[in-house]
Every structure is written in C-alpha cells, then in structure tokens.
C-alpha cells in the first residue's frame, strides 16, 4: 500500500515537473469551455448535457496522451530496471501509475466545474442529481480509459506507439455501441454490454446501477491485470 503511494507521488511530481500536466489541464479546459459556451446560451437549457457529451470525445485523445509515458517512458530510459529490481511488486507499480494518470484526469474534470458554477448562477431548476451522476460517470469512464492507456503504455517503449494504440483501443470501446448494426443479432446484446456508452448513458441519466459499476470496475481491473502481465513477461524474454 505504501509502495503504491510512493510510486503515485513520484509520478504526480513527474507530471507537474514537466509541461505535461499544465498543457493537459489548460488545453482540456479550453476545448471543453469552447464547445460548452458556444451553445450554452443559445439552447436555453439548465443542464450540462452538452458538456457531458463532449468530454468523452475529448477523452479519446487526451487520456491516451496522459498515460502514454507512464510505463513506455520507463522502458525507454531504462528506469524500469530500477523498479523491477527494487522490492516492489508489479501490481503496486502499475496501480500507483494508474492512479497518477487518473488523478490528473480528475483534476481536468475539476476544471470544468467552472461551467457548473455558471449554470448554478444563470440557470433555473438545476437538477443537481443529474449533474452529480453525470460527473460520476465521467470519472468512471476516465478511469476505464486510463487503465487502457496504462496497458498500451506497457507493451512498447515508444510513447508515440503507446498513444496511437491507446487511442485505437479507447475508440473501439467508445464506438462499440454505434456499431451494433453491423453485428449479428445474437451478439449485439453482448457487444452492447461491453460498450462504454451504454453504461455511461445509464449513469448520466441518474441511474447508478451496480451492473454499471461492476462493468467499469472490471474494465479497469482487466486492463491493469494485463499491464502487470505485460511487465512480467519482459523478464522471461
């Protein structure tokens, strides 16, 4: 547990000691702000539905960018040799890394609270429940994407490759819901269950069902498990 914290804090510091975190936070805020305010005063609705629709799309590129260096960078500079020869398990290492990326994503999400405040001031009949569950859903989807990004970062030592693979896998999860037409009807229920959108839409409607929570927990668990395995496999080559 303590080791996870050590890895986590080192990684957070690494984010903020480089331009990475600032660039991420600022651009994330600008893009979301632009798309939100663009239409917010035109449509005359007291909700953040537009924001909640945009953020998952922005995530598609931003989260793989945040996570691409997590492990690929260590493999590239060779510092992975320090880590794997220290008395620390691969799981502690991977979880610490994942939590660091996830924290940065939460900070980015936190920056959009400014729109929420705008809404509270200018809006009427604000549905706080829906807003809360909307943010909750975005946090969950951020965790799922971050676990995918952590995994793609572990299978290569090239950060660009990690990024591209990350975008691809995240995109597959994102689009699964929209590709149901092309899937044999017998499989469509299954594919739909795998899709991120399906679970997110439930949550953003305010229905926080244990099935949806289990789904996100399993996605995160599955990809972190793969990450641990992929680091372990390096020792055997």
């Amino acid at each position, binding site marked *: 547990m*303590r*080791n996870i914290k*050590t890895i986590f804090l*080192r990684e957070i*510091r*690494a984010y903020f*000691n*480089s331009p990475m975190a600032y660039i991420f936070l600022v651009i994330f805020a600008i893009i979301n702000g632009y798309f939100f305010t663009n239409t917010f005063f035109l449509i005359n609705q007291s909700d953040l539905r537009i924001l909640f629709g945009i953020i998952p799309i922005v995530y598609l590129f931003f989260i793989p960018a945040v996570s691409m260096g997590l492990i690929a960078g260590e493999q590239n*500079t*060779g*510092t*992975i*040799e*320090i880590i*794997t*020869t*220290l*008395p*620390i*398990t691969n799981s502690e290492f991977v979880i610490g890394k994942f939590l660091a990326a996830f924290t940065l994503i939460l900070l980015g999400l936190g920056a959009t609270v400014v729109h929420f405040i705008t809404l509270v001031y200018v809006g009427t009949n604000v549905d706080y429940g829906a807003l809360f569950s909307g943010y909750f859903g975005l946090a969950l989807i951020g965790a799922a994407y971050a676990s995918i990004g952590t995994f793609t970062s572990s299978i290569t030592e090239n950060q660009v490759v990690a990024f591209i693979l990350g975008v691809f896998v995240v995109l597959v999860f994102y689009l699964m819901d929209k590709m149901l037409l092309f899937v044999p009807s017998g499989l469509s229920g299954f594919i739909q269950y795998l899709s991120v959108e399906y679970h997110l839409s439930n949550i953003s409607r305010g229905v926080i069902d244990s099935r949806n929570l289990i789904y996100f927990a399993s996605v995160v668990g599955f990809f972190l498990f793969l990450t641990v395995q992929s680091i372990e496999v390096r*020792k*055997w*080559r």
Partner: protein
Amino acid sequence: MTGLSKNFGSLEAVRSIDFEINDGEIVGFLGVNGAGKTTTLRMITGFLIPTGGTVYVDDLNILDHAYEIQKQIGYLAELNPLYSEMSVYDFLEFIADIRKIRGKQFKEALARVVEQCGLKGVVHRTISNCSKGFRQRIGLASTMIHDPDILILDEPVTGLDPNQIVEIRGLIKELGKEKLVLMSSHILQEIQVTVDRIIIIHEGEIVADGTNEELMSNFMGNVHLTMEVKDATIDSVSNIESAIPSVKFLNSEPKNGHQILHLEYSRENDPREELFKFAVDSKWIILSMNPHTANLEDIFRSLTVTGGANA
C-alpha cells in the same frame, strides 16, 4: 548459483554458469563486451528470469523469493538509468521510501551515502543537470541507501575521471570488507586492482575463476628471461644448461659487442641467483637481466580471443 543459463531466442547468452560467492568477498566479473556479464547480473537481481538453473541467496531461490532477495541487494545497472527530472534528494528519497527507510533513518542514510559517494553540493540539483561522473555516483548512492548485504555493480566506474575512479575503487574495497560485492567490467586493470577474486566469462561460459595469483599460476607459462652480458664465450654459453638444469637456453644474439641471451625457466624454481654465480664463474659481466612473466592481460587475451576453454 547453479547451472544458470539464459537464451534470447536462439541466442545462448549465458550457458550454464556455476559459482558461489561469500560475504566479505569482492568478486570481479570480467569479459569482453557481449560475453554475458550483464545478462548474468540481471538474472541475479531478478530483472530477467533464467531459462535454466537458478540463483540462491542464503538458500532463497530467486524464482520463488525475488522480493526477499531484492531487499538485500543493491544493484547498479549498466546504463545507470535515473529519473532525470528529479532532484538528487527526491530520487534518493524515492528509492529509500520503497526500501522502507523513512524519516530520521532516511536522514542518516542520506548523510552516509552523500559522504561515501561524494555527493556534497549536488544534493538539491536536478539529475539531468549533473555530469556523467555525478550521475554514476548518484546511481551508486541509490544502491547503497539501504546498506545492503550484497552489492551488484555493473561497470561501476564507466564515465568517471581517474580521480573519481580511485575514490570509487577505495569505496568498493571498503564496502567489500563486510559485504559481498560483485562487480563487472571489461577493463582488466580496473578489476585487477579492486577485487579479491576474478571470474572471467567468455561467450556465456566461465573460463577462469580464482584470485589474481591463482589465475597467474594456473594460466601462466614459463618465465622468459632476457640477459645482456659482456665477455660471454660461445663455449661458456653452451654450458649453461648443464650447469643449471632448471634453465632452458633458447638462443643468443649479438648486440653492440655484447650478447643477448634468451632463457626460459619455470615459475616455481627461480634460477636467477645461480645464473648470477654461473656468470661470475664464467667471467661474464651482466649488464641487465629482465624476466618477463605473462600478466593477467595475456591470460585474459588468451582466454577470450582463442575461445579459451582449453587454455
């Protein structure tokens, strides 16, 4: 360790290596580039899993107890990877934290390694702004922060200037008094002056193992003696073998009116005293007498250039 081996695909990097090291021993791992030194060290530290065989540390098997073994080992990797965006202090604190050295203990450990590795003045510098020599010492400091029983140093003195090399050498010797130190190098002189015992590895196999002296006596041929003498008659020269049986006469050549004699004798019985008496009796005047013993370098060359196994 027993029957340790490692294959990379079809390449056999290390083939069935066996050796045992005890506390208080400084062992040098010597071999040309690509001999399998780093691969072997990486298997000992748990960075690579052996294809065959295993490593034991105090009866603990690396395959099952990597975590416990890694607690006792301090490992300096060959390329000395460091988190270059961190400050020296933060980096050492990070390593110490994982080693469960915190608070007051860390302050003490930090003071110790800063002193030992000569890091005073750079503690709060960012690692990327440190010179190669300092980076090497930072790496060394990070391997010693938990005062490990076993130090594994892969080419510890690369990139250091001669003064620093002498310092680090002294440090390694000091540490080796109570700890087990296993260091690798492809620089023979380095190994020779630092370690108690040398293991020469070539193409993934151990070709020699012993102290400096043992290696010398095992692998060295006869001593070749060059004598420059004046007033040596042909008769007296041809008598030399019968007068001193342990000497073998090779040939002689004239030089500036003197004679250069090439002689050979085995290392155990040094006949130089008798040779001197013989020369006096034969009324020679000895101008010089130079024995040439093969040195470790010759041994290393013969072992690693010619394939070595039967040298």
